């Protein structure tokens, strides 16, 4: 039990450090959907750091592929129904996170860390609809 929660705790601590570094140095909230989404409506002088942050994510991803390939789960083939499902999932995640002004990182970590009521409500909301969706997909349909 302690063993199984050690890596989530440690990984979470790194995410907390990352958010703290970005706030301390850049004065920015580490909300991923906001950081990358704002690139789609670029403001002069406010694009480079977002792209570089994205580059950092990808570089971290490459390091993980190299050092810890199991982190990405078992490779699976993708059928046509899987493509439709993932496309719908992506659209909803992108649309919803921008409309709701944040996702798991911006609301779930940064917002809750500063005690924002909006973020607490948002986090409870997406946890609830996420759990409901999995419940329907796995246990009903």
């Amino acid at each position, binding site marked *: 039990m302690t063993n199984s*929660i050690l890596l989530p*705790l*440690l*990984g*979470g*601590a*790194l*995410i907390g*450090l*990352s958010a703290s570094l*970005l*706030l301390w*140095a*850049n*004065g920015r*909230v580490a909300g*991923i*959907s*906001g950081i990358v*989404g704002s690139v789609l409506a670029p403001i002069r002088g*406010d694009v*480079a750091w977002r792209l570089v942050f*994205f580059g*950092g*994510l*990808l570089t*971290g*991803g490459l390091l*993980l*592929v190299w050092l810890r390939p199991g982190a*990405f*789960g078992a*490779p699976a083939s*993708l059928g046509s129904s899987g493509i439709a*499902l993932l496309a*719908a999932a992506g*659209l909803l*995640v*992108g*649309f*919803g996170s921008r*409309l*709701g*002004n*944040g*996702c*798991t990182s*911006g609301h779930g*970590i*940064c917002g*809750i*860390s500063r005690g924002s009521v*909006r973020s607490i*409500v*948002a986090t409870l909301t*997406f946890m*609830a*609809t996420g759990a409901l*969706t999995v*419940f329907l997909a796995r246990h009903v349909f």
Partner: protein
Amino acid sequence: MRPLISAFLSGLLFALGLGLSGMTDPANVLGFLDIAGDWDFRLAFVMVGAIAVHAALRPLIHRRERPLYAPKFPTFSVTAVDSKLLVGSALFGVGWGLGGYCPGPALTSLATGASQLLVFVPAMFAGMYVAQVVQARSGASARSASLGVTPHP
């Protein structure tokens, strides 16, 4: 240059944290959301670890008058729980439950080049774009900065 280095390091740390914690495996995420089934509670501790560290460091950071490389800390103009927040978060959760990916893990996992991400990530950007166009048309863009992700005047 230095603010770009810190932004890069922040992104790098974020990705490593996601990978180490198990967030980049959608099977873990769906297991965490499957409360009514064989609930895998482990990912709850990602939030515990992240919030503990960030909530502890925030007051220390805010002792400074301003960030190291920026004129001011983010401010949060919108404080009310409104329908946009609720509807947006609800839709986001449905997408999260369908695919097992939220934005951070999806972008980190793009490094694998797996076909799942080549479908999910472009769709996610399309969804973000649509949301931004819809909000700009409704004139709400000026107050869409509640998370401080757009610069304040």
